[in-house]
Each structure stands twice: as structure tokens, then as C-alpha cells.
């Protein structure tokens, strides 16, 4: 990522942000039924976590989560990973999130961020935006957008993280 920034020559500020974010900010969001949930409660007993920002109307987001869902059981047995899907649907669609998730038979933990508070706190520009966290809750990798096949790269990285290997 840095090569690109430097080559464009307009990201000096980005690069100077050498002390990048590595822990999750604590933000009050909602569960799918509207109850409160604080993002500081996100844990997976020392196993990796994938946090995916999505929306019901976002086709690539749904494609990504559907692609992961097809092999989610395998991913879990292999790496112990837990996928947390953060819906940024606003009041227009937030009531549809739970039926949507069930309609898709997704097994993820799903939370709703209807006014974008967690999205802003995580500096997410657009959805889909996916974060990979190691067992200590540090963000070790992130990716914006989804193209078919990206889930393979994510799986490889998750395997590395679950073994405690470093990601460049």
C-alpha cells in the first residue's frame, strides 16, 4: 500500500501516520433486534476475527459474505476464525437485516451500525471493507472492495494468522 502512496506523492500525511491503528475502538452499536452492543465486546478467545462492513443493498458485499458462507464451516474448523458482519444499513433497511441474514442462511455474528459511528471510527470509506484481526485483537490486514476470488486470499491470510505467523 505504501508504494502506491509514495509513488503518487500526495500521501505524505498517510505515511507519517506510522503509528497506525491496531486495536478496535469502543463504539456503541446495535444487535439485529436493536439492542445495544459495544464493539469492545468483540472477542474470539485468542483466535482470528474477520470484521466485514456490508449493507443489504451492496451487491459485492453480499457476494463476499455469501462466498465465505459457502465454506464457513471449513474455515472455522481450520482456523477457529469468527466472522463479524457489520451492517451499515440505515433506518430505511435496518429492519430488513435480520430477515436478510436468515434468508441467506448466514451463520455470522451480525451487528448494525445505522448512523455509521463504527464505520467512521474504523475509517471505512466505502463498503465492502474487510478487516482481519489476530488473536490479540490487532488489525493485521484490511481490504476495501470485493472481487470474486478475494476470499481465497483472505483464507490464506487467516490461516497464517491462526498459526501466529506475521503478515507483510
Amino acid at each position, binding site marked *: 500500500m505504501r508504494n*502506491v502512496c509514495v509513488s503518487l506523492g500526495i500521501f505524505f500525511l498517510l505515511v507519517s501516520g506510522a503509528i497506525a491503528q491496531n486495536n478496535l475502538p469502543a463504539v456503541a452499536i446495535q444487535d439485529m433486534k*436493536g439492542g445495544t452492543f459495544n464493539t469492545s465486546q468483540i472477542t474470539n478467545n485468542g483466535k482470528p476475527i474477520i470484521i466485514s462492513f456490508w449493507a443489504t443493498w451492496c451487491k459485492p458485499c453480499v457476494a463476499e459474505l455469501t462466498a465465505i458462507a459457502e465454506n464457513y464451516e471449513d474455515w472455522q474448523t481450520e482456523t477457529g476464525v469468527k466472522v463479524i458482519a457489520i451492517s451499515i444499513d440505515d433506518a430505511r433497511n435496518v429492519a430488513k437485516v435480520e430477515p436478510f441474514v436468515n434468508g441467506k442462511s448466514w451463520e455470522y455474528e451480525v451487528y448494525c451500525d445505522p448512523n455509521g459511528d463504527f464505520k467512521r471510527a474504523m475509517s471505512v470509506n466505502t463498503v465492502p471493507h474487510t478487516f482481519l484481526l489476530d488473536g490479540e485483537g490487532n488489525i493485521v490486514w484490511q481490504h476495501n472492495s470485493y472481487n470474486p476470488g478475494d476470499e481465497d486470499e483472505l483464507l490464506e491470510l487467516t490461516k497464517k494468522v491462526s498459526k501466529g505467523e506475521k503478515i507483510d
Partner: protein
Amino acid sequence: MKKIFLATIIVAFSTLLSAQTDKTDSTKTKLDKKLSDGTKEVNWGTIHGNFGLDAQYYFNDSLIAAPVVPEKFRMNGFLNLVYTNGNFSAGLRYEAYLPKPLLGFDARYEGQGIPFRYASYKLGGLEVTAGTFYEQFGNGLVLRAYEERSLGFDNFIDGFRAKYTPIQGITLTGLVGKQRFFWSWGPGLIKGFNTDINFADLFPKLGEKKIKLMVGGSFVSKYQDNEDIVNPLDPNQILNLPLNVGAWSGRLGFGVGRFSMNAELAYKINDPNRTNGYIYKPGSAFYFSASYAQKGLGITVQAKRIENFDFRSDRNMTGQPLLMNFIPMLNKQHTYALAATIYPYAVQTNGELGLQADINFTTPKWVAKKYPTQVNINFSMVNALDTNITGDLYGYRTDVFGFGRQLYMDANIEISQKVSKKVKFNLMYMYLFIDKNLVQGFGSTPRPINSHIIVADVSYKFLPKHTIRLEAQGLITEQEMEHLDDRTNGSWVMGLAEYTFSPHFFVSVMDQWNVGNPTEDFQIHYITGIVGYNNGSTRITFGYGRQRAGIICIGGVCRQVPAANGFTLSIMSSF
């Protein structure tokens, strides 16, 4: 402005100092690592943020009626920075629209500066923010400050906010401030108070029984100075304006097992303003949703009734700026281009009745197929209120269940099917009715339009990491011979081809063709090509093409976006 900023800095510094010395704080002790020689490592906190740049180089194109841009080049850019140290955080956003905002964005954004800056800290259950912030009470019927960057919508509040959680399950929020108005503030002072009570947190026994019960209430009031506004019904009279306008709402959320429901009822006292024609009738808004969800099946039913509920921190404002609340649209949020952008619906904040039903299901495993079929069926309709004009400044009277003229109807079915490991497709059919003039504010003469939209979307992963996606769309509608000057008239076809090489590259070409426009000169091809590069959290796209003139609708307001022809460059990044 200077005073507020100074206060923010003082708060920021004093909090920083106290945070540095507060050793009992759990987060701090975790962050401050002890070094081997026993000295304490100083924690400098973390900085993160994101960056976005959209630039466009314009060509003249009179065929699509693109406005001439003498300076040829325009850009919108921003950089967010957030500093966090333990319980303290501060942030700012620099924005630049140089030399002017991109076509389609409000020209009043012209300039550059730091409109957004805040400092906040947490102390036990209390969180205080000074400066700018976003906020939503409940569904947003009485208060929602939010940002929709791609549409140029930003109505953050600049002032003070305190959130307090005395015990888990109860959240209280109080705020006071003024709203963003481009590079300054709106004239109205907003004061708001909100309570949310979650009984499942208060009484763990409920949680064990999988029963959720949430109750909430909000009060919001705005103050604006008096001014002389001539009575629209009698030019010799001056209106007696309410300087303080209050609104409140009550909410109930209930969930047991597979069922959930959520209802909110809001009320606003007399608020004569420009959008409602300075009438004194109080406003009301009702929103209801109920859903059923089990594995493989989800059903949502929603209803709403909005009456005279345009709520702004300036009684004379129209358009996007200074909206204080948010009336959700109750129709499917379409993403296929022809379904989403040719005839978009706009919320009628001054009166509408809407219904929606949405069903999602996945064919169960016993249906003998290797890959399940996913189906979404959606129906929505919106009618105007049935009103009786009173002839005075009260405005009108309505019947609670009186349905007026139909404004919008949308019935659609979408099927997603994976055929093999390599091939997937999506099919959609949609019937759409819209009264274009009444919905998009082009006048009071009805202009009903019926159309049928079909979409086929196939993707083929011919090699690992290499995918080709093809999209074909058609919109079939009658030609309206009385609207010969309209560049969105008659039938459309659209084709899209996209090639992606995971995880870094993609290329796509799209053509939208107004094949059925009764004016032959307007049977235009809008062709665009885009190449993109993704790496980590950075995304760069470069494109060339024609953008169709269209309408962007948000928060009850539709905005004309002019046509454009040119190169586009977009960079998004976060760190």
C-alpha cells in the same frame, strides 16, 4: 467559531493531562507497557484516518447538455484524522473542493478548510464530546445528523454532546449545537435529549428467555430568531412565528425468538416553513416494522405515515441543507443502474403513506440441487395523504387512514443461483409505477409512468482469481410524446462487461442507451469505461465516459445532477 475551537482545545488538553495521570484506568494500564528496566513507556496514542479524492476533467458535450466547465478540472477531496489515547480522542476533517465542487455537488461547497473537528473523552459511563459530531435518535424521525459523502450531504452538529450510561441497559444523550451549512452554520440552535432503555440488559432473565424489549424517547427542539415573513395568503400580514419548535418521539422494540417488531411515533408542533408553505398544522410521523426470521427464510413488513414532517434548523431552507431528521424510504434500495437511477423515489417529508413487504428465502437442502436458489420478493407502494385544504394558515386536515393519489409502486423478484463452482447468475424482474412530477417535485401536474425492468447478471470464474461478469438490463416504458425535451423518456437498454483479476485489478465497460426516446437526437449512448486497482485499504479507479443527467434523492429531497463528459480519477484510502 474561534471561541468554540479554543474551548475544544482547552478541553482536549486538560483531558489529555488527566488521562495521562490516571493510572487506575484499565485501558491505560493495558496500553502502557512496562519496560524491562522498570521505567514506564510513554503512550503517545494512535492516529488513524482515511482519505478520498475524486477528480474530473471535463469535455464540452452539447448533445447530452453537459454544462460547460471553463476551468476544465474540478476535484472533491477530504482527509479524516482521528487521534486516540486511552479514553481521549480528537479528530478533524480537511475538505477541499477545488477550484469548485464536482458537477452535481452543491456549488456552495466551493472552498477548502477544516469544517469538522472535535475532542471527546470518556469517564466511567459518561462520554462528552465538544465540537462536531454525528448523532441519530431512534430511527432518526426527530433527529439524525449524518454524512452521505457521495451525495454531498453532510449535516453534522457543532456544539456539545454528553452520553451517559448509569447502568448497562440505559443510555441518556443530551446535545446542543448548530448544524453545518457548507462552510458556516445554520441559524437555528438545536437542543436534543434522548433515552434508550434495553430491558434485556436490565433484567438478565429476559435475556435468557430470548426476549428483547427496548423502549426509547426523544425530545428535540430548535430555536430560530424572529423575522418578518409575509403571510402567503394575505400580503398585508406578517406571520406570528414560533421561535421554539419542539418535536418528540416514542419508540418500542420487541423481539421474541424469531419475531421482531419496532415502532416509532413522532410529533412536531406548529412549524411554518418554506417547504410546507408556512402552514401551522402540527406534524406527525409513524413508522412500523415487523419481521420473522428463521434459517433460510426472512420476512419483513413495514408501514409508515408521514404528515407535515419536514424538520430543519432554518425555516426558510429548501433542498438538502439543514435537515434535522430522516424519514426512511420504504422501498427496496435497488442497485442495478436502470432500476435505481432512471425513476428514483424521493420521500415526501410533508406527507405520504407507505407500505412494504420483503421476503427472502433460500431453497432448502432437500430440494435436489447442488446449490440452493436464493430468492427475494419485494413489494412497496407509496400514496399521498388524502387532504382537505382548510383555506387558512392551518393548512389542511387529514384522515389518519385516508389514502390519496398513488405516487409510487414497485413489485420485484430477484433470483440468485450458483450453477457450478465457476458460474453464478442473478435475474430480476420489476414492475414500477411512479408519478414523476409529484415525486420529484417537477410540479403539481401528475405524470404517471409505468415501466417494466428486467436484469440478467452472469459471472464466470474461468480461472482461479479471474472472473468475467456480464450484465444486461432493459427498461420498457411507453414514449411520452408530450415530454419531447426530456432526456429520460422512453425505453432504455444497458449492457455491462467487467473483468476482475483478484485481488488487485478490474476493468469494466458500460453502455446505457436511451433507445426508446421519442426525440431521435436523444437516443444517446452513455458509454463509460473504468479501470481500477485495489491494494489493502487503497482503491484507485480511473475512468472515461459520459454520465447521464439524473436525479439523486436523499432525505426527502431530490437533486438534479447534470450530465458530464470526461475523465474521472478516484482514490480512496484508509490507515
